[in-house]
């Protein structure tokens, strides 16, 4: 069975998504001067998020909203729970400052749009179905994770400085929602839900999805390699955490998906996507939020862990959740 898995895994690495990721890493490692212009990268991210939102919004129109409740609550619990888990795990490890640990746990609790998109494309390639609204769970996991991290950091500071006072949650939520990434996703969702964007979705956003993702994977690969160098300057435990966390979190996400399957008939594909989101760590929208909110944390530690290791591991573990789903959910 392990041989079987390795063969499947090898085949998955050849799939465009992962192959472009690895290609980007190799380019960077070889010192290539190849670059994707920043304007293109930002547009690719915007299109992917609009596409994810539009797709989910169109599906939600026909969905039974009651179905959504259980997975949404599970996503919120996962987001916040992963951060709490990470904060106490990292807190026990040597050489980790509390703020750095909290910020790192925050990013690993939050969600990566690129990893989610990769998961969707890989499910499609395997023809594994999922409820079209599952990608809309993204903010339900992402925002609670970031909030939990920020609150933990503020509690820590208050304890250290001996000050009192409540932590204001609402501004953090609003600020998250106004960020470029969540705005694009929510705009897509709203348009999918309230308008009839099917024609443009089918003729533009959806056909370009896979190709644009390959570009994004190139960028993520190049960036991951260059972050690795930075990570070398901080304690090694970050690297260890960054390798293990996506796997543990993915399992937790998969477990939550299984629970939802038993409770509400959540699809196997949905469980895989929940695992992918839980395993993923935020590289694009989480870092600036945490950097502004936890200025005392060292970005080399948390951005390095997430972008340098967390994201590649999360991407490479997608085939794992697919294989798990095949084993756990009988066809």
């Amino acid at each position, binding site marked *: 069975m392990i041989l079987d898995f390795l063969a499947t895994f090898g085949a998955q690495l050849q799939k465009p998504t992962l192959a472009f990721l690895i290609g980007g890493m190799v380019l960077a490692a070889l010192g290539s001067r190849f670059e*994707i212009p*920043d304007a293109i990268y930002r547009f690719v991210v915007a299109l992917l998020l609009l596409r994810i939102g539009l797709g989910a919004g169109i599906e939600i129109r026909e969905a039974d909203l009651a179905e959504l409740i259980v997975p949404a609550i599970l996503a919120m619990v996962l987001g916040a729970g992963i951060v709490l888990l990470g904060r106490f795990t990292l807190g026990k490890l040597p050489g980790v400052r509390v703020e750095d640990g909290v910020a790192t746990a925050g990013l690993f609790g939050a969600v990566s749009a690129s990893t989610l998109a990769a998961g969707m494309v890989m499910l499609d390639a395997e023809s594994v179905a999922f409820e079209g609204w599952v990608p809309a769970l993204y903010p339900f996991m992402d925002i609670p994770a970031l909030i939990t991290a920020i609150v933990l950091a503020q509690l820590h500071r208050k304890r250290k400085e001996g000050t009192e006072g409540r932590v204001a949650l609402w501004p953090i939520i609003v600020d998250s929602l106004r960020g*470029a990434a969540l705005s694009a996703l929510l705009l897509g969702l709203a348009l999918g839900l309230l308008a009839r964007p099917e024609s443009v979705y089918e003729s533009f956003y959806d056909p370009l999805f896979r190709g644009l993702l390959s570009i994004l994977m190139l*960028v*993520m690969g190049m*960036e991951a390699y260059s972050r690795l160098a930075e990570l070398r300057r901080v304690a090694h435990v970050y690297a260890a955490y960054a390798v293990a966390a996506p796997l543990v979190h993915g399992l937790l996400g998969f477990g939550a998906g299984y629970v939802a399957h038993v409770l509400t008939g959540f699809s196997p594909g949905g469980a895989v996507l929940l695992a992918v989101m839980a395993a993923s760590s935020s590289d694009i929208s989480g*870092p600036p939020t945490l950097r*502004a909110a936890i200025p*005392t944390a060292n970005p080399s530690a948390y951005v390095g862990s997430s*972008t340098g290791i967390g994201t590649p591991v999360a991407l490479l573990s997608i085939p794992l959740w697919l294989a798990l789903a095949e084993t756990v959910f009988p066809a």
Partner: protein
Amino acid sequence: MTTPATKISIVAERFLLPQIERVLEAERVSGYSIFPGGGKGAHGIHPVDGASLVREFSIVKLEAVILDRPAAERIAEALARESFQRHSGIVWLESVEVVRAEKF
């Protein structure tokens, strides 16, 4: 025909802009310009126009020309104290001469 003035230049990551703008507004600065770029410093390399994964971490330079020299110094000190204590970025002042002093 020219009036002496002070130019304050700030190089920082983009996510600090709102904070910097608040400091400038507190001193009633009438205008400023922003230029996108990249650079190298204690925190490694920021690409010039290749993809920077987090846009908010890309480098910008802000320049404000100010007639009131003490205000420029107050701004520089406020920034050094508040924003650049914890975040990377540099600030410098230069003596310049402006025409149309009434614009500032």
